[in-house]
């Protein structure tokens, strides 16, 4: 009765029946909060739904305040975990000592999503066609060095398309964003000559137009002819996307393509600290079918909490999130790429380290 009064949607039977046997530990109860990256929002909503279905009596809220604010809040001890598009800094690590019952906080990847280059061009994107781009050309477009769609640099790679003489309008994020940082880090690694800016979460030049959030970028790209931008794969809709040159093939964007890059990427050994799993994305991968522009988003937790219940929750939460079932839920809800099995092992080991007593 209380459920109806609050307007809660009763958990869907199908997902709860499958999830109960997956989590073998005792069900978690109580209210838990997380905050952080907006990129994970859709996936996290699915995880919350799945987790609450499996743990009757657990109530979880995720506030998509942004990675920076999420980590800051986590470091005050107000949240059980943080979602973040970037790994913890040394500074953050040091601060986490005061929050965690023992040791330092650590981060594990939970969400991998390819970033699409989207465009809107009469005669091309509305005909359902894609274009091919290599890293240098894309970098030059986004740097305002290539200003026309029929520029030879583009035309040469797209012989089967007739490209119009339309001006290119670059659309980028106007807010500070993990998506931007992951996107331009691809240029920096794969076309260092064409992209000389410092790595930053802010868009570095004044080319084209800025728009707030992924939704802003998408709606701006849709609003005019000749626009090009970048956005999370799940938001592409019917816009045109670019196939990126990997080795000597042009690979279309796909969730699996994103996974393949991560599979082919080493761990970042500059990330010091116990249990940390930080991926150093290998942008120059030549793996077959790989799509190299990806965003990896992490969950940040403590190895031990002052409130043991929180530890139990964090452990159960991450276990569910990184499980095949959790990753499937994210894939369904957010179109993300699954964690490659090579990573899952390391992640599981880290999660084991969380103390629940």
């Amino acid at each position: 009765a209380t459920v109806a009064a609050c307007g809660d949607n009763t958990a869907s039977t199908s997902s709860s029946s499958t999830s109960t046997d997956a989590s073998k530990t005792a069900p978690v109860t109580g209210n838990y909060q997380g905050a952080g990256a907006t990129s994970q929002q859709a996936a996290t909503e699915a995880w919350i739904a799945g987790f609450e279905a499996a743990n009757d009596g657990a109530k979880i809220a995720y506030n998509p305040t942004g990675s920076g604010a999420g980590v800051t809040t986590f470091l005050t001890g107000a949240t059980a975990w943080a979602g973040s598009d970037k790994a913890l800094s040394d500074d953050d690590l040091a601060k986490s000592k005061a929050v965690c019952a023992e040791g330092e906080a650590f981060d594990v990847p939970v969400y991998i999503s390819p970033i699409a280059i989207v465009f809107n061009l009469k005669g091309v994107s509305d005909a359902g066609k894609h274009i091919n781009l290599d890293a240098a050309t894309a970098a030059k477009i986004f740097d305002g060095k290539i200003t026309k769609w029929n520029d030879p640099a583009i035309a040469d790679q797209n012989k089967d398309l007739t490209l119009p003489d339309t001006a290119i309008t670059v659309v980028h994020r106007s807010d500070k964003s993990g998506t931007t940082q992951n996107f331009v880090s691809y240029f920096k690694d794969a076309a260092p000559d064409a992209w000389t800016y410092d790595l930053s979460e802010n868009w570095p030049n004044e080319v084209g137009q800025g728009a707030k959030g992924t939704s802003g970028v998408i709606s701006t790209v849709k609003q005019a002819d000749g626009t090009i931008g970048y956005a999370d794969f799940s938001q592409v809709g019917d816009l045109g996307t670019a196939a990126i040159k990997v080795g000597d093939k042009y690979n279309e964007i796909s969730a699996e393509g994103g996974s393949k890059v991560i599979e082919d990427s080493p761990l970042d050994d500059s990330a010091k600290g116990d249990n940390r799993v930080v991926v150093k994305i290998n942008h120059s991968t030549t793996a077959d079918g790989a799509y190299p522009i990806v965003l990896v988003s992490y969950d940040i937790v403590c190895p031990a909490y002052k409130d043991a219940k929180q530890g139990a929750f964090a452990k159960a939460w991450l276990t569910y999130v990184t499980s095949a079932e959790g990753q499937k839920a994210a894939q369904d809800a957010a179109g993300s790429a699954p964690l490659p099995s090579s990573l899952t092992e390391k992640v599981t080991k880290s999660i084991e380290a969380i103390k629940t007593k």
Partner: protein
Amino acid sequence: MSSQDTPAVMAPAGGKTADKVFKGIAYACGILILVVLAAVFLFLFFRAWPLIGGDQAANSATISSFTGGKVSSFWGYVLPLLFGTVLISVLALLIAFFVSIGIALFISHYAPKKVATALSYVIDLLAAIPSVIYGLWGGLILVPAIYPFWNWVANHLGWFPLFAGPAANPQRTVATVAVVLAVMVLPIITSMSRDIFLQTPSLQQEAAYGLGATKWEMIKLAVLPFGKSGIVSASMLALGRALGETMAVLMILSPSVTGYSFKILQASQSNAIASNIAAQYPEADDLGVSVLIGTGLILFLITFVVNFVARKITEKASA
């Protein structure tokens, strides 16, 4: 003096305590405003303190990261933002002011009574539309819809520096934002002026009519002078609103990183402080937040200066 002779003057008046308490509360509420504002100021100041008293190298690095390395000093960062904020707000106020006064007069003195009541509702409705909806509408509907108009302006009036072309497409520009902000502040000015215009003493209006004034002359002689103080207050409120508007600007404007520009029809020319804070805050670290709050402090001071100057000017004009 015996008690019988005591004149009634000395009879204690009932409600004296209530009187004192009421006065006390009124005073306290006045003072509370001061306290709150002082608290806000101190809050801004302390949160922005690392900018002044902190490690300057780290500050420079933070600001560089905000601007892609173009600027590393705080003033280099905040002044263009300030410029943009003021530009947008002043344009919005300019557009809204005349239209609002027009509507207020239309309701108070031109429209027939029934129509006027209906129109009053319409204005209240306009006031009632939340800013996030203006942001949505502005970003999704107005931006493409207004492009042909601004394009026309850029092509035909481009000689005027403000309208220098080519007009950006999509029109996520200062011009469009100013229009949306104007629509947002319009009900503030309209609603307040209308209420005041309606209260213009009929004696004064009749005095003007009696001299053979036309309606417009009557308005100039009686209504506008009567409403002046209210109009100024309303405009100041509206300006404040425009200066501080966050979401609508954030959702519509294509901001620049740095630089001053009057080209209101081109994209990525200016940025506003409030929306910049909202854009940067979610991903900012501690020092970054200090920088952002520093920009907020500057906006606060500027609002203070603008109001102070406006007050001095109106004082002079009415003296």
